[in-house]
């Protein structure tokens, strides 16, 4: 009898160890999942004009000296995507082809502008290499200051009426598309949208 109890006791301990090890492993996997599913849309930074506020009106010149206006109602009825980049930012470069495809696909309603700042000589090689001179490349520190761009690549979507619709740090095509989604759905960020959805579900 005692032998049987000892055997069962040791066996139970072994099983409890295995079980608690499995629980620990599962909890750690939950942690990894949390890290992977974290923010899915463009990261909205705190400063600058927020979604829903009118964009500051600026008269600027592009790379070739043509003047253009950012902010205020657009005469052509098109929205504007401002993409802030710099020659020294590798992620920005990887997004240039994405911007090209966006430009050709959304040309009907969207004007894509590239914005950077600093002395012109630093940008000459970059503009030549990437063929940006005809693609609305703007050198202006006033623009970056107006939107308080602290980190790159940063994008701002302004609608046809001159109102900021979405802003955020964009590192991928998904982030960029989340800005268009934001305009379409009228929610400034993915988090906001989910929040609203939940609210609607609760009401329904």
């Amino acid at each position, binding site marked *: 009898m005692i032998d049987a109890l*000892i055997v069962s006791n*040791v066996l139970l301990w072994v099983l*409890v160890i295995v079980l608690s090890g499995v*629980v*620990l492993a599962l*909890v*750690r996997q939950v*942690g990894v999942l949390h890290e992977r599913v974290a923010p899915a849309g463009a990261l909205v930074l705190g400063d600058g004009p927020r979604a829903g506020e009118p964009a500051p009106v600026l008269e600027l010149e592009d790379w070739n000296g043509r003047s253009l206006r950012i902010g205020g109602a657009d005469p052509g009825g098109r929205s504007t995507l401002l993409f802030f980049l710099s020659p020294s930012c590798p992620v920005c470069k990887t997004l240039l082809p994405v911007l090209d495809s966006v430009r050709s696909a959304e040309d009907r309603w969207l004007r894509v502008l590239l914005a950077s700042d600093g002395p012109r000589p630093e940008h000459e090689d970059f503009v030549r290499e990437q063929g940006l001179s005809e693609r609305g490349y703007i050198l202006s520190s006033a623009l970056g200051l107006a939107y308080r761009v602290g980190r790159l690549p940063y994008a701002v979507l302004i609608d046809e009426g001159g109102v900021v619709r979405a802003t955020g740090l964009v590192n991928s095509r998904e982030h960029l598309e989340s800005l268009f989604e934001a305009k379409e759905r009228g929610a400034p960020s993915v988090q906001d949208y989910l929040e609203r959805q939940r609210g609607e579900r609760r009401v329904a």
Partner: protein
Amino acid sequence: MSFDLDPAVRIALRLSLALLLLAASHHKLREFEAFRSAMANYRLLPDRWTRVAAAGVASGELAVGIALLAPGLTRAAAGAAVALLALYTAAIAINLIRGRRDIDCGCAGPRARRPLSGGLVARNAVLMLVAAACALPAAGRPLVWLDGVTLVAGVTVLVFLYGAIDASLAHAPRLRALGGSKA
């Protein structure tokens, strides 16, 4: 009336608590600057005292952890462990009452940022009970080989479970941030 704890259970609890304190002091001493700034964030002491206080807390943990391993010092060490845990819990509770939930608790190393929560207070309360149990007198019973199994297995399971519970506490705010259940 006195309550005697079985010696095997008492040793298992004592070893587990010692391991916990040694691990905690290890990360505090290794990344001392991070721990000091976490402690300064509690805003309980003037800034120039935080360095001394942080060094005191970290080395106190180390000393209590080692003392728990020495059979002769168990009662004193258990008492000191209760006092240390009570100190942490009070610091956390004060900041929770102040509404400063977002500061890092400084209890899991600098890489695992962990905001303050009621869960931490509950966790510390359980640890204080464990430490208090270590101070109870042990029943005089000769230890047999099966107690060895209980000891090793018991400590292993406690370490695993502590890790699991601690990690779930860390996940709770992230789960809330996802907008899922309010658990």
